[in-house]
């Protein structure tokens, strides 16, 4: 993969007198000039409300917005762009499905299956649904190697769940789940499947049709695009059978005094003025990633993760969390008795930005038997130098906390 650092203006800035070493792309990525310029270009040349104006500008804005829908479909291998719903992000997409599908599919006593490695955004919406419908939520456990426990998964399927949901890639462990296999098993048990792709679409080639997931969701801001835009990829037959999520303009066919009929897909699920700026930025991000090639992006991150794991493992008193085998560019760790928040403060003083805390995955933290971990995540602009800077900053933390140098 080519060196992309010069495309990212923010990487030229300094933090506490050091170059910025940004290792928190799992939370949100930095943006390349190409995305920033696309947003400026949209407001400088194209801005109008979409789907309603009869004038030229509104037509062009609508075309730009709808073109991105097709680009999203092509990028993730969705067979039908009418099944691409623009949302604010992964969280909204999951809430949409939990609320709308849940209303027609989940009854009292039914089972919903989640896993112990979910981000809160793919757990709490299902808790809310289970509570509202008096359904049962079953959590699939993990193996000692921090993979999904397939035996426990099969056991959960014996309850004939109505909905099964799991993440594609864990935001804490870096575990990559066998999505196609899990989906096939869940389908055989009669379940509808939602896959949280927030940590996958930015980092791996994803083909939703090949995975056969009924719903696949992700956020733009974790893949070089702006905040506030993401996509729900759904099978049109399922989306058609679901009631609307939000009511308002844009999602209607005709409105009467006491009732309304709804627009066809995808607009049935896009009430109100959409985030056109975000969609345009997402389109630019997708073109940028396609140009790099997702196979190369994935290989770059895997190589960095391997290098980071090797260097971190050599630090005294450092504990790594995650599977021993292949993993995505996510590395969670703790260092001696230094709390992760203290670690994050200390490495920040060297310009190194890492995350510390429960990573919105408290059930997983309890299974790891820690309150928090430190986490470094890698993306297209990270280099081995960044890993070296992290390691040097962690050695500084050891010194500050009174540990001798190895």
């Amino acid at each position, binding site marked *: 993969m080519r060196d992309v650092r010069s495309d990212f203006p923010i990487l030229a800035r300094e933090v*506490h*007198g*050091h170059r910025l070493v940004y290792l928190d792309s799992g939370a949100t990525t930095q943006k390349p000039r190409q995305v920033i310029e696309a947003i400026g270009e949209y407001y400088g040349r194209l801005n109008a409300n979409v789907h309603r104006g009869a004038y030229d500008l509104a037509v062009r804005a609508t075309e730009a917005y709808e073109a991105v829908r097709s680009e999203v479909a092509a990028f993730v291998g969705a067979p039908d762009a009418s099944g691409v719903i623009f949302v604010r992000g992964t969280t909204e997409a999951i809430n949409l499905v939990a609320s709308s599908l849940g209303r027609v599919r989940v009854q009292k006593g039914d089972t919903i299956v989640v896993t112990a490695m979910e981000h809160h955004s793919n757990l709490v919406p299902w808790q809310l649904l289970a509570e509202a419908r008096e359904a049962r939520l079953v959590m699939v456990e993990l193996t000692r190697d921090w993979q999904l426990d397939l035996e426990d998964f099969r056991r959960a399927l014996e309850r004939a769940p109505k909905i099964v949901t799991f993440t594609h890639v864990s935001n804490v462990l870096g575990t990559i789940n066998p999505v196609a296999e899990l989906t096939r098993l869940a389908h055989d048990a009669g379940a509808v499947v939602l896959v949280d792709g927030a940590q996958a679409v930015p980092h791996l080639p994803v083909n939703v049709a090949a995975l056969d997931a009924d719903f696949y969701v992700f956020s733009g801001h974790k893949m070089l695009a702006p905040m506030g835009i993401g996509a729900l990829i759904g099978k049109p037959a399922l989306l058609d059978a679901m009631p609307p999520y939000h009511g308002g303009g844009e999602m209607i066919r005709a409105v009467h005094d006491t009732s309304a009929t709804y627009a066809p897909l995808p607009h049935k699920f896009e009430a109100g003025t959409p985030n056109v700026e975000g969609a345009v930025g997402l389109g630019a991000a997708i073109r940028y990633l396609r140009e790099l090639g997702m196979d190369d992006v994935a290989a770059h991150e895997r190589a960095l993760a391997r290098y980071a794991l090797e260097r971190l493992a050599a630090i005294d008193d450092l504990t790594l969390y995650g599977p021993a085998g292949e993993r995505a560019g996510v590395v969670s760790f703790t260092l001696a*008795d*230094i*709390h*992760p*928040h*203290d670690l994050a*403060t*200390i490495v*920040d*003083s*060297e310009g190194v930005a890492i995350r*510390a*805390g*429960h990573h919105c995955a*408290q059930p997983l*933290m309890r299974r790891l038997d820690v*309150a*928090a971990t430190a986490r470094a995540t890698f993306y297209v602009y990270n280099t081995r130098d960044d890993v070296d800077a992290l390691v040097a900053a962690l050695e*500084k933390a050891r*010194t*500050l*906390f*009174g540990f001798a140098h190895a």
Partner: protein
Amino acid sequence: MPDGDAPGLAELYQELILDHYRRPRNQGSLEAYTRRVALTNPTCGDELELDLLLDGETIADVRFSGRGCSISQASASMMTQLIKGKKLPEARALAARFSEMLHGSAEAARDKSLGEARALAGVAKFPVRVKCALLGWNALEESTRPQP
């Protein structure tokens, strides 16, 4: 100690603070307590439970338990040392004074009545860590609020 260009890192992690983090004073819980308050910091997951045994208006005994970063744990430890034996209004005044210090008051940072807790004055330079230092003191404030 290397300090790079980040102001105050050495002050933040000075020996006294690390000592309270690693050997917290008054740690545990009280079998008999008058007030018990548990607080969490939802953004970072830090947890703290504070037990007070009151003899009239006087804090006869105090213990805390919890888990969290060095700043939250050391601050709670220092606080328990300071408030043991104090009367409630006095303890509450110290909590207010401590909060002033963390919000940058140089005058509060010179106030000897804060005892060892003055070592935490440097936290004021790290705005995202102020909430860590206040966790125990917020529990004190809540558990000693005058009851209706």
